[in-house]
């Protein structure tokens, strides 16, 4: 049976005769079935609260990554240390969805605090790829991508990315993942990983879906001091715009070390862009290789300070109060954090230590500036950058287990550079390698979401023909 698209559903849901209770019952039943089969959820909401308001998302099922606070619904960020935490407030993006009539149907699985590339570093459920259950969904928004693909009902996922956590799982599952410009969507209510890198975005079955959800969640919020004061925009308006004459850059460095067949599929995609009137030119971005180490230094440094709030007192895991403050603090964190969280907090502490701070942390911030400048130069001549999203297709669980931490970090080599620079990006399916989806990555200049969305939309239409 063909699944209704979000667009078709929203038309239907406007009708007075729409059977909401019947629909909800079906959705919850379906979520449970999908959970048994692929485990994308940490929490399924049995009775989603129904807003009286039928705004722009009437009764549309929305899932939320579990590091985003939902009032009255357990929110764990994938960590044992937050087991049982019930936020007394909604994140701003969730508030916006509820105001427009959306239904929060569940909280999706993720790597602990977003520390991972495959959604296998989990205290709770590990999602399986609906295309091949022996393979991972990618991470860290793996549950969001898994559910988006598996859902037999209309749905869009609220996801979040620090260094590629939306693009990677979208690429591995053949879905569409949009990460907006840093600061476009309020981070209020997000359990931070790295404040200067975290972005809330969306994953959907098609480009229209992510454009629609972005229009709802983007916007200034006085509760987030890094939120950008821009006027509300309807991003779906850009989709039908003409793309003829736009120019995209193809950076050579992004094809080095990439699976040959993946490169081929992305080049097929570039030819499709050419067919719809977009010009391309190869360019070089020589600083690309330095993005990964700078990113990890900055991300871990920020994570190590952010995670200091988990001290077993105000919320989350707590133990019997004994010993002095430092002993208690250290013990709660020993029990509550997984191995990768401990590793990142410790490395983040190390790079900020006296004697190392300038060589690592401060230097990384300078490299970041140079990388931003390099991107800006490209965007002075081009409308977007096109590259493969990931250097590999979805790997098997057993292959991921064998990787050393530093080898896992290397997997983010293509998604990290734009994320380090806070650039909006979108991963869209552009073909298959050995029956597994390949993602093509469109990267835009700051606040040029409209541009990359319209390229993606026009590409999607042509590709599906």
């Amino acid at each position, binding site marked *: 049976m063909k699944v209704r698209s979000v667009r078709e559903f929203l038309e239907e849901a406007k009708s007075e005769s729409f059977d909401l209770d019947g629909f909800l019952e079906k959705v919850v039943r379906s979520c449970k079935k999908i959970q048994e089969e692929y485990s994308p959820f940490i929490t399924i909401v049995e009775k989603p609260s129904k807003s009286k308001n039928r705004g722009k998302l009437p009764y549309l099922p929305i899932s939320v990554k579990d590091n985003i606070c939902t009032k009255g619904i357990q929110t764990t960020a994938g960590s044992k240390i937050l087991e049982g935490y019930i936020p007394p407030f909604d994140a701003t993006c969730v508030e916006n969805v509820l105001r427009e009539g959306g239904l929060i149907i569940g909280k999706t699985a993720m790597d602990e605090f977003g520390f991972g590339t495959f959604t296998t570093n989990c205290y709770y459920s590990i999602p399986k790829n609906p295309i091949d259950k022996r393979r991972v969904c990618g991470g860290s928004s793996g549950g969001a991508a898994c559910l988006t693909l598996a859902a037999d009902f209309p749905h869009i996922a609220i996801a979040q990315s620090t260094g590629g956590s939306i693009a990677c799982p979208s690429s591995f599952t053949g879905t569409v993942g949009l990460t907006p410009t840093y600061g476009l969507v309020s981070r209020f209510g997000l359990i931070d990983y790295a404040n200067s890198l975290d972005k809330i975005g969306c994953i959907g079955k098609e480009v229209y879906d992510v454009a629609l959800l972005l229009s709802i969640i983007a916007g200034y919020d006085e509760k987030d001091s890094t939120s950008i004061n821009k006027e509300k925009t309807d991003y779906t308006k850009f989709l039908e715009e003409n793309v003829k004459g736009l120019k995209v850059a193809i950076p050579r460095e992004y094809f080095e070390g990439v699976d040959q067949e993946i490169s081929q599929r992305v080049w097929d995609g570039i030819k499709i862009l050419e067919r719809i009137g977009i010009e391309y030119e190869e360019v070089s971005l020589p600083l690309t290789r330095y993005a990964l180490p700078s990113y990890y230094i900055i991300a871990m440094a920020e994570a190590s300070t952010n995670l200091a709030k988990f001290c077993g007192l105000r*919320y989350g895991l707590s133990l019997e109060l*004994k010993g002095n403050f430092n002993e208690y603090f250290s013990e709660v964190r020993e029990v509550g954090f997984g191995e990768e969280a401990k590793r990142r907090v410790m490395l983040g502490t190390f790079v900020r230590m006296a004697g190392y701070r300038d060589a690592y942390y401060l230097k990384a911030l300078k490299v*970041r500036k140079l990388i931003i400048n390099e991107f800006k130069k490209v965007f002075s001549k081009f409308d977007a950058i096109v590259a493969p999203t990931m250097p590999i297709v979805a790997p098997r669980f057993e292959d991921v287990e064998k990787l050393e931490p*530093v080898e896992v*970090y290397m997997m983010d080599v293509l998604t990290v550079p734009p994320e380090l620079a806070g*650039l909006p990006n979108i991963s869209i399916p552009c073909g298959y390698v050995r029956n597994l989806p390949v993602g093509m990555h469109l990267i835009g200049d700051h606040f040029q979401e409209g541009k990359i969305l319209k390229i993606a939309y026009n590409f999607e239409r042509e590709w599906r023909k």
Partner: protein
Amino acid sequence: MKIEKTTVEHVSKLARIKISEEEIEKFANQFESILKFFSMIDEIKETDVEPAFQPIEIKNSYREDEAKKFEWDPLSNTKHKEGEYFKGPRVV
């Protein structure tokens, strides 16, 4: 750079995370390869730029310094409380 077990122990104390003897050993090895990877940025000699603390420029954003009442109960998620206060282990 060689990472000694004593360095890992020192960092774990600073980071307030208790770790086992086994983890100390494992982390010492892993930190060595991760820090080697971090050191790639040494190849960049150009340092005459402002560090980018944020990816986009953000001006200080202040709001009026007015007390507001909490709309929610901050004590709703803890069992360590007494009256209107959080209760913690002794500090000194």
